[in-house]
């Protein structure tokens, strides 16, 4: 039992904007009153619901390979020394599993969504997620380049494709579906890419990236998955990709969709020399279409390692930078590319990317539809979120940062003209209430009675980055996990799954395809329920 008294509460899910309220916790949930127990005096402190990261890469084959590819980072980064309450680990660009939990909790995040899992490495992903302490977790299975599904769509067998998608979600023990460069990664296996939404994908006659996007969005809506299609569009990172992004959005009309890391899809220009931000144009379209949510995928300057299932893009990035190249074979399902990268303010392209991420966050009017993310570790590491919050809340600080950038960027971005400053209420929306709602996690990002008692308590501080980087308390499921910068308790979080219904004959349909084409036997492919620690199967949305 726990009571938190006198704090200034920001709870956007219940419309509470900076009111002084007392909160009571019993058995991990908020209740209306408690008798006895510990009291935390939060007078003068700021209370937020625990942060929710809608799009991050923290567990599985690719992030683990990225850890191995960046040994140089291990020696310069923060080390967690084993103690009574915590295990050893390393922070840095690709933190180790235990450190990931400590770092997320350390800045007040209590739920994270691993955004890209091929079924072939799902077992590995769940093993790693079990080792990420404190936070609750979910993951999304990669489908848009699954060749079995593409073949069915090509043959016009939509219903069977739907069963296949549902089967894969349950086989991966996932929470939703991620689509990465639809058709492009399949084409990459023939050395190609798919950059036109309405041109057939290599190897197919009728199937286009556009038709894949529409079918998959429809499938996910009909299955009633709590989280809509989580889409990484075609042509990520390429100058002039705004046209592809807008066309993709048109293919999604009438469906729910979450557009991942939109910053990487909001560029104008014809090549690297003329690349400019088109965030204003994109935000205008986005503001008018309430069927979509997005996360910013903001960029911060510094060293990082880029990881994505978008193999063709990553291979191009490797050729551009001459840095290391990592690739994992995920057979018929998707692709993978890992390239270490440094964002520099003196680099025109990087400076435009930095501004584009912030512009999207500032130009999209509704904080319930745009969320705080860096597409960790692609744009920057998640533990740098407080720096983004500072940039959003202080227009003067943004101007100071821009003063150090090449003057040529000024006619390529609109950031200097934007004076909007986020309020604490809006920050609480983009880092917690909004992403929780987009993920369909009704228990999260909400300080209401009966909801999960995840919250973070900050000192008020004029240094915004310090305020959000060093919470006074972090409370997860009613337990005080962080107190004044120290890790006090390391409870294990839950893992959220969904089980969409599918035809029981799907196994027999898939078995021969597997025996022909896959490296592992069919029986070993789906992740067993016993493999998931502290699983919570959430219901799908009822559909007619």
């Amino acid at each position: 039992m726990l009571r938190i008294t006198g704090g200034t509460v920001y709870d956007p899910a219940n419309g509470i904007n900076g009111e002084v309220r007392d909160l009571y916790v019993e058995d991990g949930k908020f209740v209306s009153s408690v008798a006895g127990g510990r009291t935390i005096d939060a007078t003068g402190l700021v209370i937020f619901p625990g942060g929710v990261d809608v799009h991050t890469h923290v567990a599985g084959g690719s992030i683990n390979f990225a850890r191995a590819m960046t040994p140089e980072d291990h020696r310069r980064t923060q080390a967690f020394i084993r103690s009574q309450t915590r295990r050893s680990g390393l922070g840095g660009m690709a933190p180790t599993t235990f450190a990931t939990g400590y770092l997320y909790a350390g800045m007040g995040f209590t739920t994270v969504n691993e955004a890209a899992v091929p079924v072939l490495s799902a077992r590995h992903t769940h093993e790693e997620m079990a080792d990420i302490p404190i936070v609750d977790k979910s993951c999304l299975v990669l489908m848009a380049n699954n060749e079995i599904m593409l073949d069915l769509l090509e043959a016009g067998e939509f219903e069977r494709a739907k069963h296949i998608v549902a089967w894969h979600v349950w086989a991966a023990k996932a929470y939703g579906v991620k689509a990465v460069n639809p058709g492009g990664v399949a084409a990459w296996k023939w050395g190609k890419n798919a950059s036109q939404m309405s041109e057939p994908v290599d190897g197919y006659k009728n199937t286009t990236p556009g038709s894949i996007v529409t079918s998959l969005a429809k499938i996910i809506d009909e299955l009633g998955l709590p989280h809509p299609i989580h889409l990484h569009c075609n042509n990520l990172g390429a100058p002039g990709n705004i046209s592809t992004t807008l066309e993709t959005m048109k293919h999604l009309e009438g469906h729910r969709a979450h557009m991942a890391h939109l910053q990487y899809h909001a560029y104008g220009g014809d090549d690297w020399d003329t690349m400019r931000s088109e965030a204003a144009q994109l935000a205008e379209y986005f503001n008018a279409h309430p069927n979509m949510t997005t996360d910013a995928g903001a960029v911060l300057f510094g060293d990082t390692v880029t990881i994505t299932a978008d193999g063709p893009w990553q291979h191009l990035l490797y050729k551009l930078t001459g840095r290391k190249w990592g690739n994992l074979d995920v057979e018929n399902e998707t692709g993978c590319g890992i390239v270490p990268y440094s964002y520099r303010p003196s680099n025109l392209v990087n400076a435009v990317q930095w501004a584009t991420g912030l512009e999207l966050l500032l130009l999209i009017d509704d904080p319930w539809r745009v969320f705080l993310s860096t597409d960790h570790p692609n744009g920057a590491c998640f533990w740098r979120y407080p720096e983004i919050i500072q940039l959003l809340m202080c227009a003067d600080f943004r101007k100071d940062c821009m003063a150090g950038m090449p003057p040529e960027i000024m006619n390529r971005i609109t950031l200097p003209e934007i004076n909007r400053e986020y309020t604490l209420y809006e920050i609480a929306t983009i880092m917690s209430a909004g992403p929780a709602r987009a993920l369909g996690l009704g228990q999260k990002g909400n300080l209401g009675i009966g909801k999960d008692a995840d919250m973070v308590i900050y000192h008020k501080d004029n240094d915004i980055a310090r305020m959000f980087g060093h919470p006074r308390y972090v409370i997860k499921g009613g337990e005080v996990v962080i107190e004044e910068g120290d890790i006090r308790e390391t409870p294990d979080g839950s893992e959220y799954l969904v089980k969409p219904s599918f035809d029981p004959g799907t196994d027999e349909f898939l078995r021969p395809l597997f025996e022909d084409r896959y490296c592992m036997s069919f029986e070993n492919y789906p992740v067993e329920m016993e493999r998931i620690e502290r699983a919570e199967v959430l219901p799908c949305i009822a559909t007619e």
Partner: protein
Amino acid sequence: MNKIKLTLKKAPVVVLEAEVITPDHFLDRSNEQIRASVVYHGKREKRLDDFFDVEGERSDCIEIHGDLNRVRHVGRAMTRGEVTIHGDVGMHLGALLNGGTIEVFGNAGDWVGGEMKKGKIHIHGDAGQQVGAAYRGSMMGMKGGTILVDGNAGIEVGMRMRRGMIVIGGTARDFAGLQMKGGTIILCGGAEIRTGAWMQRGTIISLKELALMPTFAESGAYNPTFLNVYSRHLDALGVKLPYAEADGRYRRYSGDRGVPGKGEILIWEPAL
């Protein structure tokens, strides 16, 4: 002058990670605080005074006595002051150094001045492998400063170094200047094989003949003007670098053409 004197009283059984032994850490600490500094004996947390007698306090001048073969990371990332070691010292001496000077009257282990940025390290004995080199996976080795080794050095001297100077008084082993991106390596006693392999830029000067790789092309013999300046600078550090035409000339090789690189290797040819 106020000085902090450390004397090893008990040789560590396994490696002692002692990155706290830096002027930056000791500067504002009392004798008791210095004694209580945390070192890692293998994986176990210990106090500095479990291994060292500590005399003095609040100083950026440190003198250490004893066989520190198993003591690692001395002077790591220090930015100021002096560290003098009478005896041998273990790996990662002055790694990530960012100012100040380190002097060792004895031998040093591997990774002396790894990825250092500024400052000076002088080893009067031999040094181990990877002097001034990049750590595994890292793009750049030392970015500035000076490392002087009076004795011999191990393999991969100045691997991926970007700027700065390394002088090896004796012989360097294989792969001196591996994948070098800039800076200068002076090999007073020559080197074993594969010198300058993969070098992209930078200068390697050898006062002894070298067995060069076939990917280095001979490109004349001359007395580069910049060596007058270098020689004068090195004179102050106690290193004699010949440059006068009367004494001889340098044969220049460019490479490594296999990369392809624009580095140069200068080999001293004394006048007959």
